[in-house]
């Protein structure tokens, strides 16, 4: 017993001795977990830079709780299991107080058990399929009811669309989103024969027969639109083929959930003009906050052509809310910050206030824009007020009665309001 105490005492002294000379003890560490190589690097590296810019700005303002913020950047290389390993490394080895990271749903699902085991904290900034709520994650991207459902409403009410093509890449986000949309459309009285669902593999480049099918489906005299969850660069040949087969945005508009300013930059946008996208943020929105943010970003990147996009705004809101929550809690302790986060308010770049809800989702405005020939979006419709993110979709039978609420007395990410039970699921 004595020996053990002695050993631990020595170990403790050793640790202090090592720690004291380094300045690390006086900083707050922020982990950045975004792919900097591999297929996702195109999208994710911009978010890494966003976090670095925000940290730099915060440090210039005097840091946080009197300390400087120190970023710890790791590269999970678009490799999903590596996300879990790197998250473990960040929390256990680097002792970061918070992680900003991940893009694809697969990578988030891979990090989640690690966060829960080590009680870490992560901010996830990308639009996704919902159907998840963890105590250790704050979701600042859009849930389906903040992107897909308003977009479909716009198509039905403003454009008079009665037939829908749900086209997506074959993986979890499009499949779940389309399932929700199908249920939603049917609840609105759209018959099953007026919904066409189509999945294609990643990187699909030969769209001839699919576009011709869409053309056939859309030329029955009833207004048709395509709701696209097609991911990544497969979009370019898709839009090109639409133009080649003579389908314009006036005949069959395409509303996309994965095409943003970043994806459009450096592209020939002529064939895309007039097609739509639904997001919570567009670079083109004219507010003083947004102007300031864009200017800061261009200066930070030293590139006058650098563009901003929706996940960057989500990162911006998430980071600032975390800073405010830490100030409110007076500590970076995960449990205290988690409590302080709920109810946090921060101004959106597009105007209005984003609010962090009890289910760890944000309330945000929804915008729909038409693609312009300069690669920017022109807002054609927006919600009157902010829309709270719905963690468990009301339109899926399996999650209809389920809510998430991380305040007492419920304190649960998967609470069934009928049986009054918490399943313990995330």
């Amino acid at each position: 017993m004595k020996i053990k105490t002695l050993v631990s005492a020595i170990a403790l002294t050793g640790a202090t001795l090592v720690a004291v000379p380094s300045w690390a003890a006086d900083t707050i560490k922020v982990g950045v977990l975004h792919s900097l190589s591999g297929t996702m690097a195109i999208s994710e590296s911009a978010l890494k830079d966003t976090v670095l810019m925000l940290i730099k700005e915060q440090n210039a303002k005097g840091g946080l709780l009197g300390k400087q913020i120190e970023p710890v950047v790791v590269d999970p290389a678009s490799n999903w299991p590596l996300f879990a390993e790197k998250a473990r490394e960040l929390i256990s080895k680097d002792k970061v107080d918070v992680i900003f990271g991940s893009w694809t749903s697969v990578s988030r699902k891979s990090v989640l058990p690690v966060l829960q085991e080590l009680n870490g904290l992560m901010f996830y900034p990308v639009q996704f399929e919902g159907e998840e709520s963890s105590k250790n994650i704050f979701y600042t991207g859009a849930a389906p009811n903040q992107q897909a459902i308003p977009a479909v409403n716009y198509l039905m009410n403003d454009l008079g669309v009665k037939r829908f093509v749900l086209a997506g890449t074959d993986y979890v986000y499009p499949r779940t989103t389309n399932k929700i949309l199908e249920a939603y459309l049917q609840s609105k009285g759209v018959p099953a024969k007026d919904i066409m669902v189509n999945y294609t593999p990643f990187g699909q480049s030969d769209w001839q027969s699919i576009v011709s099918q869409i053309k056939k489906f859309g030329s029955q005299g009833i207004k048709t639109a395509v709701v696209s969850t097609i991911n990544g660069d497969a979009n370019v040949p898709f839009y090109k083929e639409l133009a080649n087969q003579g389908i314009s945005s006036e005949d069959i508009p395409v509303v996309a959930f994965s095409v943003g300013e970043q994806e459009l930059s450096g592209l020939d946008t002529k064939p895309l003009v007039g097609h739509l996208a639904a997001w919570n943020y567009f670079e083109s929105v004219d507010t003083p906050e947004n102007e300031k943010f864009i200017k800061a970003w261009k200066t930070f990147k030293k590139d006058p052509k650098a563009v901003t996009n929706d996940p960057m705004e989500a990162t911006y809101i998430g980071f600032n809310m975390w800073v405010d929550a830490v100030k409110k809690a007076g500590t970076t302790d995960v449990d205290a910050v988690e409590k302080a986060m709920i109810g946090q308010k921060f101004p959106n770049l597009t105007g209005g206030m984003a609010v962090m809800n009890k289910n760890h989702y944000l309330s945000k405005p929804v915008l729909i824009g038409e693609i312009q020939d300069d690669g920017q979006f022109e807002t054609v419709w927006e919600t009157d007020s902010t829309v709270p993110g719905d963690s468990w979709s009301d339109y899926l039978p399996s999650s209809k009665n389920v809510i998430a609420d991380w305040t007492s007395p419920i304190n649960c990410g998967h609470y069934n309001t009928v049986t009054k039970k918490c399943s313990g699921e995330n």
Partner: protein
Amino acid sequence: MRHFIALCCCLFGLLSSQAYSAESSTSTSPSANQPPAELAPLMLELTKAKYSKLLPVLKKIEANSDESMLPLFRTMMNGNLYFIKTNKQLVQLIEDANQKTYQGIFSQQLVADLSKRDVSKIKVNNHLRSYLRNAIARIQLTSSSAEVRKNAVRELLSSLDEETVTTLERLYSSETNQTVKTEMGLALAINTARQASLPNSTRIAAIERLSGSLENTARNVLTQLTNQDNPAIKAAAEHALKKITQRVERFGFLNQLFFGLSLGSVLLLASIGLAITFGVMGVINMAHGEMIMLGAYTTYVVQLMMPNYIDYSIWVAIPAAFLVSGIVGVLIERLVIRHLHGRPLETLLATFGISLILQQLVRTIFSPLNRQVSTPSWMSGSWEINPVFSLTLNRLYILAFSLLVFFALVMVLKKTSLGLNVRAVSQNRNMAKAMGVKTNWIDAMTFGLGSGIAGIAGVALSQLTNVGPNLGQDYIINSFMVVVFGGVGNLLGTLVAAFSLGIATKFLEPMTGAVLSTILVLVFIILFIQKRPKGLFPQKGRAAE
């Protein structure tokens, strides 16, 4: 071969006639220099109104205008309409390769010294765009060119409102051109068939008039009529629809066939180089896809160097890509593969390594982002044969090009001394050596030829898909599939295999979806190889070992 040349000639003839027609349709702009004075306040309103308020303004402009408003509407539809902030003059943005200039919309004169900050854009959305398209068509109904009038009528088919119908009725009697008159008659028949208040006999006559038409609107009107209670109308509509459906299905089949041939041509281009390096030389070259990628990047670089001559860039890019990929191929052969002769496993690993190195090299030089390769204007758009059957031009050219490359390669192998040596070395290396063939040199040349052709494939693929570091990876599996399926060492087999796989995939796709059709084709090939390990056309005789 002769047929093929004839086909090429046809294609070029078609191309030039298309270019001509495009020109003639834009040259109808009038010479009016100033907008009519009574429209001036409306023009001013145009610069002030918001989206939702623009439509009434445009309607007013259309109501008191003639052909002189065409440039305004056209410019606005294309999103190039701006106004000068200080004096509210409307100007048109003209974008050249490297500079933007503005010219007065009515005066057609250049307004000097305008920068981006001096002007503001008049924005359009889909609503306005479709209105403008129809407005232009309505104005063009009285155009002096019969071709323009015909297209205007066709444009208006899907949006026949009362006003348009009255205009059409008025113009129908005075129309002199027979084709335009037929189109107008069709439009009026569509309208008549829909009017429930008219007597049955008139409507049935109109329905009969529609029965041969492939126009979408005609078909939709008939479909709606089959759901009606009036039995006589219903029967007539059903009869007419049956005739149309048969024709549409026939053209639908042709369309599928073309899609299949087009995919086949892409597969052929991608695998034909491999058919030489893998098929003839027996080298498993995992870096073949990267040779394609290098060709595509060469196209990009060529376009960067001649931004004002995009239309001709392809002709420069083809030989350039052949040289770049060919030289890289020769280097790979000389530096790596030569030393691994007769060790297929090591060759596979080494070439796989080379493929990774080349990908990373491209990432470092050009960034991991995809590069934009423009399509020359003569390759974009489609050749519309009738309303339900059109061929996209870029794919049509690539189909012809792939066959051209194929036959050129066959000629090289059959008719030149290099080809003779290549065949000698591939059939019996030692004997060829004994006869004085420089096998080392032939190996390098063969590999260079195969790689160079992969480079040419890259030029064609840059027109269809994204040019990025992963371009090659997407095609390497398909290439091997085609070569193995066709029979290793047999160029004709590659041709047949590429087109049959292409057609099979495209006929499966509508039934099973894109994901499953790929799987089904792969399963089929696995089963086929089990049964016939040497592919469709196995090599026979002593050369087959």
